[in-house]
């Protein structure tokens, strides 16, 4: 997005003269939406970012949370939507590269990746090509750098056929005394290490700050190719440099390239800098302007006291990592850039780093009425068995094995609960203790499209539940807001509502939002925004990984309990969409106080050893969640839905498929049934015992004694397992 006239005027005022070409490019890069958050800053302040665990909140490259007294978790989310739309393979791959470098910036050791993918219809040839490219890009890059991709979220929807959303997150761990590093001071040297700078990725962040051009070929400068081998070497040398204590500060070169890295580091520490561009190692000959804003991948900035430069150099040489010492920090707050003896830019760091926030207009569009009207006149209830099969085979529900088996989710030998086995992944710390963390990413584009406030809140709640379901205590979240064009008030409204929804529920659930990222301009070339989507990644604390919980039924004859009350909330549900083709109605209400109460109960039940399996109820409702537990455990069940604790229900499909929040299914060990019910009573939690697991090859739903559904479990397993692969590999 080129600078506006007012912005150019502002730059003239800051400099007191006409800017040079290089200076303009620096401002353009830094003031892009992607780097400066100028449209979103004011609203993002609403997010509650404080809490007793928070060591570093929003502001640095990644936040840090003290999950244990001797371990800090650093985690962050990032989007690579625009690059992935034009070059799915490299776009997704470089998204992984970028998010890992954010974690490295805090000196943490990356231990897990997550990918949250909102994709088009695999039967659409273009979307299919995008899907394969995106997954392969993540697979090739993530696997090569040796960080397991342990969890994620996947959604398929025609709305994403030409503009998919590719959100990725990285989790790192560090010792509290190593994580923040120290403060850069005047005289400290600035080193750029990693890949040589090339013309690739010129002004990539301004590319991400505008709508998809019809003629994408013109944006060739923005195409970046990932180099996972170099990234892996960066990961390795940073661990060594931190261990040796020879670097003071680290920052990645991401959007805005060298300009952003230098000016933000300087501005954050009241420093200036002197830079000699000709010293930068390059891949081809570049102009000073290009050197300043190139977004070549796999580069990091190190701040090193001159005393330590030799030991740093020795490590980098040993590991074949290229580097150059390009300048030093000063105390005058001014960034001075030289190229072969000529000064090409002189800019005050603070003014460059932080443009004035923009206040964007926001108006609700007409179409939102679809999500704000209650459902009336639902079509008559179809056959339950057919509905169950149809909902179960929705691509949003079936197993995502085709995706996660392409990722090495085991490397690092920390992954105790693996993808597909639990509601979240559980990783051990591997420090000799039994402690670990749980991680998961969630979103529901349909919910946020129908009702961005409540939809975003529900994404937070689902993430909370997923963390609880594996036996962890939710500690903090980060968010990625994927929205349309902020200059269009009707698009901006969605963004505003999503922020407010997250802010509200995070406060209620006492879950600090420690960081996040905003992606605007997610619209197709006709200007239609894709479904606005709020993606949440959360971390939870696990005190004993040997008790980490999975969702598969474990034994014959145990009790099946539903935690929480079921309401007739079919609006925006997967059922309504799959069976009737409807995307409308009020979406399920967020219920933060029930979430807290029920979450606490489930957490307790797990730690007391009352349960064999836990699964939260989300899209597809109760029927789907039960069948998932049966399929994964290869153990059937028989339940009576008349026993489900429900309110205001008029039809049975409301019990089977309602997506009411704050609910879980537990497989309760027979000998603990009484204890569990007592615990529920004490905590004021509604629990209904609806049936038992059966070591038979069938799943049976009755109402009182009438059999409503009797389906073959092997058949269900088969379709649950294979549908996605068939759609993707055979669907075109």
């Amino acid at each position, binding site marked *: 997005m080129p600078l506006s006239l007012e912005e150019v005027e502002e730059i003239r005022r800051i400099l007191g003269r006409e800017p040079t070409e290089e200076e303009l490019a620096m401002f353009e890069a830094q003031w892009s939406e992607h780097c400066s958050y100028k449209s979103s800053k004011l609203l993002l302040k609403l997010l509650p970012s404080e809490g007793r665990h928070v060591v570093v909140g929003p502001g640095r490259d990644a936040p840090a949370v003290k999950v244990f007294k001797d371990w800090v978790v650093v985690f962050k989310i990032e989007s690579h939507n625009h690059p992935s739309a*034009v*070059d799915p*393979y*490299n776009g997704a791959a470089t998204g992984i590269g970028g998010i890992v470098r954010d974690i490295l910036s805090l000196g943490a050791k990356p231990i897990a990746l997550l990918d949250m993918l909102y994709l088009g219809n695999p039967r659409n*040839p*273009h979307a299919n*090509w995008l899907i394969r*490219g995106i997954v392969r890009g993540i697979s090739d890059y993530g696997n090569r750098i040796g960080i397991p991709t342990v969890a994620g979220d996947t959604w398929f929807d025609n709305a994403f056929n030409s503009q998919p959303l590719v959100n990725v997150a990285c989790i790192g761990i560090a010792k509290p005394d190593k994580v923040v590093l120290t403060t850069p001071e005047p005289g400290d040297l600035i080193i750029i290490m990693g890949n040589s700078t*090339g*013309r*690739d990725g010129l002004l990539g962040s301004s590319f991400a700050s505008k709508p998809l051009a019809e003629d*994408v*070929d013109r*944006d*060739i400068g923005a*195409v*970046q*190719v*990932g*180099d996972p*081998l*170099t990234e892996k070497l960066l990961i390795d040398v940073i661990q060594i440099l931190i261990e040796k204590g020879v670097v003071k500060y680290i920052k990645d070169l991401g959007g805005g390239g060298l300009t952003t890295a230098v000016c933000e580091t300087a501005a954050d520490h009241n420093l200036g800098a002197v830079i000699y561009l000709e010293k930068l190692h390059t*891949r*081809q000959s570049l102009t000073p302007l290009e050197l300043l804003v190139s977004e*070549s991948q796999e580069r990091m900035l190190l701040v090193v006291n001159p005393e330590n430069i030799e030991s740093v150099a020795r490590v980098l040489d040993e590991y074949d990592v290229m580097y150059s010492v390009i300048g030093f920090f000063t105390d005058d707050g001014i960034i001075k850039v030289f190229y072969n003896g000529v000064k090409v830019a002189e800019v005050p760091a603070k003014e460059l780093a932080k443009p004035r926030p923009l206040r964007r207009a926001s108006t609700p569009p007409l179409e939102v009425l679809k999500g704000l009207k209650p459902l009336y006149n639902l079509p008559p209830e179809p056959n339950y068995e057919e509905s169950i099969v149809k909902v179960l085979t929705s691509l949003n529900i079936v197993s995502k094995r085709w995706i996660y088996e392409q990722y090495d989710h085991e490397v690092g030998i920390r992954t105790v609960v693996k993808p597909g086995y639990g509601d979240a992944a559980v990783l051990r710390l591997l420090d000799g203790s039994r402690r670990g963390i749980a991680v998961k990413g969630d979103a529901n584009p349909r919910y946020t499209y129908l009702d961005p406030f409540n939809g975003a809140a529900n994404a937070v709640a689902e993430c909370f539940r997923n963390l609880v379901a594996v036996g962890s205590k939710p500690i903090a979240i980060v968010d990625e807001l994927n929205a349309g064009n902020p200059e269009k008030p009707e698009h901006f409204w969605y963004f505003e509502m999503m922020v407010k929804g997250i802010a509200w529920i995070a406060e209620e659930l006492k879950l600090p939002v420690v960081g996040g990222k905003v992606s605007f301009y997610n619209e197709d070339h006709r200007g239609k925004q894709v479904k606005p989507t709020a993606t949440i990644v959360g971390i939870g604390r696990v005190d004993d990984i040997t008790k980490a919980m999975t969702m598969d039924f474990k034994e014959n004859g145990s009790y099946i309990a539903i935690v929480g009350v079921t309401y007739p909330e079919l609006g925006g549900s997967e059922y309504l969409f799959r069976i009737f083709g409807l995307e409308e109605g009020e979406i399920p209400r967020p219920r933060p106080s029930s979430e807290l109460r029920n979450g606490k109960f489930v957490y307790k039940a797990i730690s007391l050893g009352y349960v064999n399996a836990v699964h939260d109820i989300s899209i597809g409702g109760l029927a789907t969640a039960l069948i998932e537990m049966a399929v994964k455990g290869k153990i059937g069940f028989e339940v009576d839905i008349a026993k489900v604790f429900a309110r205001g229900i008029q039809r049975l499909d409301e019990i089977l498929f309602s997506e009411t929040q704050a609910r879980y299914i537990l497989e309760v060990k027979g000998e603990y049934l009484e204890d569990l019910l007592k615990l529920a009573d004490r905590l004021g939690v509604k629990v209904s015992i609806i049936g038992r697991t059966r070591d038979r090859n069938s799943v049976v739903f009755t109402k009182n004694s009438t059999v409503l559904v009797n389906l073959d479990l092997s058949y269900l397993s088969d379709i649950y397992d294979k549908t996605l692969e068939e759609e993707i590999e055979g669907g075109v």
Partner: protein
Amino acid sequence: MTFIHRVEIIITNKKGVKDPEGETIHKHLILRKGYNVVHNVRTGKYLLLTVSASSEEEAVNIVKEMCEKLRIYNPVVHDIEVRIRG
């Protein structure tokens, strides 16, 4: 009358787009083993198709059109070359 033609497709990263594989092979294998006369390495994908067509030209044209339609390559990052295999 149609004949069988062998058509080859070569897909490489565009000029100016990085090729980390080529760089690695060059630096860590070829140069390390002393082949200094090699100045540069670019890598790519190779496809060899057997095609029925009335002429070589027609065969090449069919394949070219197919590469565009089926997205055998990504024009944003790749250059493509389609030729008769001699």
